[in-house]
């Protein structure tokens, strides 16, 4: 009796190779036939065939069914439904697709003025700028000697294919283990294609019809590619590259190295130009020398482009006739910010790009420097900014994004969605992976927190009326001692590899902590008895999420090394308000003054007893709360990895005294709305319009376009705009009405702009006078840029500019402006002069 499961397709990018390979991976572990049916278009496919699945052209929101038929259909049904519910929906992250600016390429006037004439537009697929000698790669074709070859016997040809497939499988699987995340995902998709029964069938059919193994592989790949090329979705069409890639690698296994398939070694900085490039070809390139990539055909979501992004190689796609535009070995520049390939350059264009590169280097250098430094406030108070993760594989990415540690590794995902608990060995492998990725930085691993709302199939807990107040977390550790000890043994072993800390969830009484310590002692003894070495824990702590723990801090502190506040649960228990209930969203919450007072008490208690205290709930990811958490005096906050850079940058601008003052005022608020308003006002503290970093004296610029570009760069570097091209254009639009050079060697370029983070005055003094089309025809020595946010409808800043405009008319002010050589002194002088009299 066949079984069926119906569901709505959840992934935004449709069923492409990556999710298809996830589904195939689960499906092929069962013997029964598993048919995927798309009820929107009526297409069906074998769920064990990635190509078949991809060919159903399933889109987000389609009604789909899986039909299972065979001896193990019941087990398959259970596994697949759980997989589709818990894992599949999140197995494909949405792709960031960069869309080209509307209306084609708008080039900065300064670049045009530098003499840019010959360039070719394309779509930026990975932003950045790269320059080097061009290397033009032709398209691939099966060499004539292979096309003309005669087959041996079909059996022998089939065997040759089988051997080649096996060899390639081993190779891909090995490469996958050593690969970074994105690369591994691509290799996995390739492995899926290689195992595909649809493809294998086509190859066998052709060999049966009298073709050689190589001819059959080439033809079968081409036939499948043809199907994909005809697909409606651009995403499916771009899978052709993956398929050709697998085909090429198979052919190499069959026939030895094919020179036409190989990418040549790169000698010196190189810009690679190709009609298209397979992921395999990309991975074979020496990425230290690869400065940029220009592709005629590849789309925004091809695996090659995804790889280029993960290695941050500036990439342009959709450059028509790319391979015929540039001679081999020519010096080219790829500007994947503006979206152009520059084939010929004047010295001035090269200088323009040299400056642009220097700016980019400085900007990225600063960001990276900030990431590399441990989290701290402007005045040097340390605040660890750590990551929350749910799987070992996330650790590497978290550290790459600047995490100072792992503040919460939720281990429950390892236990859910399976029929037997993970073994000690399996757990050890995963904890070890996270600890190794940390390279000595702390990793806090939370012991199993299931039960209640997080059911686990192999733990047969009876259903509860009120699971959040039920049998969960540490509460079942006594009854499930073997399960808990297995985890503790794995953790103790991994502790030998780095700074691993253990954290216990849902502690309400001190006896619970003592129980875990006893289990920990037993686990240690068991390891010793088995001759296994185990490491010293870098810490043993508890989650603060049950309000009762708040009034047992002294007793808990006697048992543990550290605390970490789980704000989600603590807030819902504190206000007796279910956080999942939207009707209660307005009640309580972590920004309620009562909760802030609770946190105050927790931090004070922890500090009184000399214990470290962190915070790992959602509150840590709320930008409004960052100054408040600094003011409260936490040692650490732990949040989702993608927000770490922002948190580090924001915290680095805070002064402890301001945050302490803020926290005091927040504690005196009566309502959450008042707290939110206070925090909002604190965050939007206006930046000064003029600061020394906005004053550049002694600039070497030859022309008005260069001077304006230099001013724009000053704002870009100071973080006052992230769209320098637009700002430059807006300044020029004002200059078109008439020159802002008003005589006496001064100019006041100005604009209202939507691409400013703050109202800004910037000052540039040129080493030599610059022709500005000024009223008196004289060159300009000093340009003062006045830039106002388009959305600023207040008058305060306009008043400042009006005052400044009057000041520059006065001789004594002008003389000081022309004579001053120190940015800080000039800033102080102007700011003082701008004070209302």
């Amino acid at each position, binding site marked *: 009796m066949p079984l069926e499961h119906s569901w709505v397709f959840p992934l935004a990018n449709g069923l492409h190779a990556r999710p298809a390979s996830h589904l195939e991976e689960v499906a092929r572990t069962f013997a029964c036939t598993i048919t995927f049916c798309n009820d929107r278009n009526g297409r069906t496919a074998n769920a064990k065939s990635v190509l078949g699945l991809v060919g159903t052209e399933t889109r987000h929101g389609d009604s789909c069914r899986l039909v299972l038929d065979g001896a193990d259909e019941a087990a398959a049904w259970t596994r697949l439904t759980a997989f589709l519910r818990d894992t599949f929906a999140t197995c494909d992250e949405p792709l960031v697709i960069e869309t080209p600016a509307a209306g084609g390429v708008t080039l900065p006037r300064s670049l045009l003025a530098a003499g840019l004439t010959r360039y070719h537009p394309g779509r930026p697929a990975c932003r950045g700028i790269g320059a080097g000698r061009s290397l033009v790669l032709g398209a691939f074709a099966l060499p004539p000697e292979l096309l003309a070859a005669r087959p041996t016997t079909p059996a022998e040809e089939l065997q040759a294919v089988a051997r080649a497939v096996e060899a390639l499988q081993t190779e891909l699987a090995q490469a996958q283990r050593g690969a970074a995340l994105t690369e591994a995902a691509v290799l996995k998709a390739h492995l899926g294609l290689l195992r595909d029964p649809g493809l294998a069938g086509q190859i066998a059919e052709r060999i049966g019809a009298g073709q050689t193994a190589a001819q059959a592989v080439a033809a079968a790949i081409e036939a499948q590619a043809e199907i994909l090329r005809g697909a409606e979705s651009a995403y499916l069409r771009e899978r052709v590259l993956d398929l050709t890639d697998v085909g090429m690698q198979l052919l190499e296994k069959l026939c030895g190295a094919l020179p036409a398939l190989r990418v040549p070694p790169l000698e010196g900085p190189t810009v690679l130009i190709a009609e298209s490039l397979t992921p395999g070809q990309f991975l074979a390139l020496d990425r230290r020398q690869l400065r940029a990539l220009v592709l005629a055909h590849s789309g925004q979501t091809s695996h090659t482009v995804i790889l280029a992004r993960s290695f941050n190689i500036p990439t342009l796609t959709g450059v028509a006739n790319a391979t015929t535009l540039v001679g081999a070995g020519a010096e080219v520049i790829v500007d994947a910010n503006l979206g152009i390939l520059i084939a010929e350059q004047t010295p001035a264009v090269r200088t323009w790009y040299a400056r642009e590169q220097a700016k980019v280097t400085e900007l990225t250098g600063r960001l990276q420097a900030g990431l590399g430094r441990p989290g701290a406030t402007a005045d040097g108070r340390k605040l660890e900014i750590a990551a929350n993760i749910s799987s070992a594989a996330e650790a590497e990415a978290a550290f790459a994004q600047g995490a100072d540690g792992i503040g919460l590794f939720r281990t429950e995902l390892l236990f859910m969605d399976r029929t037997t608990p993970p073994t000690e060995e399996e757990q050890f492998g995963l904890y070890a992976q996270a600890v190794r990725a940390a390279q000595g930085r702390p990793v806090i691993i939370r012991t199993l927190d299931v039960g209640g709302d997080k059911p686990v199939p192999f733990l047969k807990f009876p259903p509860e009326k009120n699971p959040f107040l039920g049998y969960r977390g540490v509460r079942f550790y006594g009854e499930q001692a073997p399960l808990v000890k297995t985890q503790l043994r794995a953790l103790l072993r991994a502790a030998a590899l780095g700074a691993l800390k253990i954290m216990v969830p849902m502690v309400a009484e001190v006896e619970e902590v003592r129980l875990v310590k006893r289990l920990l002692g037993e686990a240690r003894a068991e390891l010793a008895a088995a001759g296994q070495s185990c490491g010293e824990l870098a810490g043993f702590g508890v989650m603060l999420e049950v309000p009762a723990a708040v009034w047992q801090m002294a007793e808990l502190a006697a048992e543990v090394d550290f605390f970490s506040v789980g704000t989600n649960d603590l807030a819902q228990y504190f206000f007796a308000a279910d956080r999942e209930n939207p009707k209660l969203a307005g009640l309580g919450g972590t920004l309620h003054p009562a909760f802030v007072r609770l946190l105050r008490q927790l931090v004070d208690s922890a500090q009184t007893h000399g214990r470290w205290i962190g915070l790992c709930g959602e509150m840590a990811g709320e930008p409004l709360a960052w100054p408040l958490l600094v003011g409260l005096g936490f040692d650490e906050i732990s949040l989702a990895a993608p927000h770490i850079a922002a948190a580090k940058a924001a915290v680095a601008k805070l002064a402890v005294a301001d945050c302490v003052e803020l926290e005091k005022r927040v504690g005196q608020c009566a309502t959450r709305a008042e707290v939110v308003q206070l925090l909002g006002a604190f965050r939007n503290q206006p930046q000064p319009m003029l600061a020394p970093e906005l004053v550049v004296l002694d600039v070497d610029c030859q022309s008005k376009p260069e001077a304006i570009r230099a001013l724009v760069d000053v704002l870009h570097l100071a973080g006052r705009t992230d769209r320098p091209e637009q700002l430059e254009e807006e300044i020029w639009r004002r200059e078109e009405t*008439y020159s802002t050079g008003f005589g006496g060697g001064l100019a006041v370029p100005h604009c*209202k702009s939507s691409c400013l983070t703050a109202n800004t005055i910037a000052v540039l003094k040129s080493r030599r006078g610059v022709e500005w089309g000024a009223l008196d025809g004289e060159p300009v020595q000093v340009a003062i840029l006045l830039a*106002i946010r388009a959305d600023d409808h207040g008058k305060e800043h*306009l008043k400042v500019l009006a005052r400044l405009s*009057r000041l520059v008319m006065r001789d004594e002010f002008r003389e000081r402006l022309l004579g001053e050589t120190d940015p800080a002194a000039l800033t102080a002088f102007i700011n003082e002069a701008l004070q209302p009299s």
Partner: protein
Amino acid sequence: MKIVAVTACPTGIAHTYMAAEKLEKTAKSLGHQIKVETQGAMGIENELSASEIKEADGVIFAVDIEVEQRERFAGKKVVQVPVQLAIKDPKSVLAKLG
């Protein structure tokens, strides 16, 4: 001489006030009384009253755009110049009042 003036430039951020400053300084140095209304991004400031306009011996518009509430000046002899001229050569602008 009693002079009233209006300054206004396209963005209303800089030149409106530069011209106002120049006209005020120059007029005073020549011994005239002057009041300058600015019509900038902040709207009308230092607004001229009906009696000030009535009593004025001369009116200057140093503007690149339409003057707001121009009807206030009906019947008056107005010297209109581009903003830039008031900045570059305010003396010549004042001389036009005769």
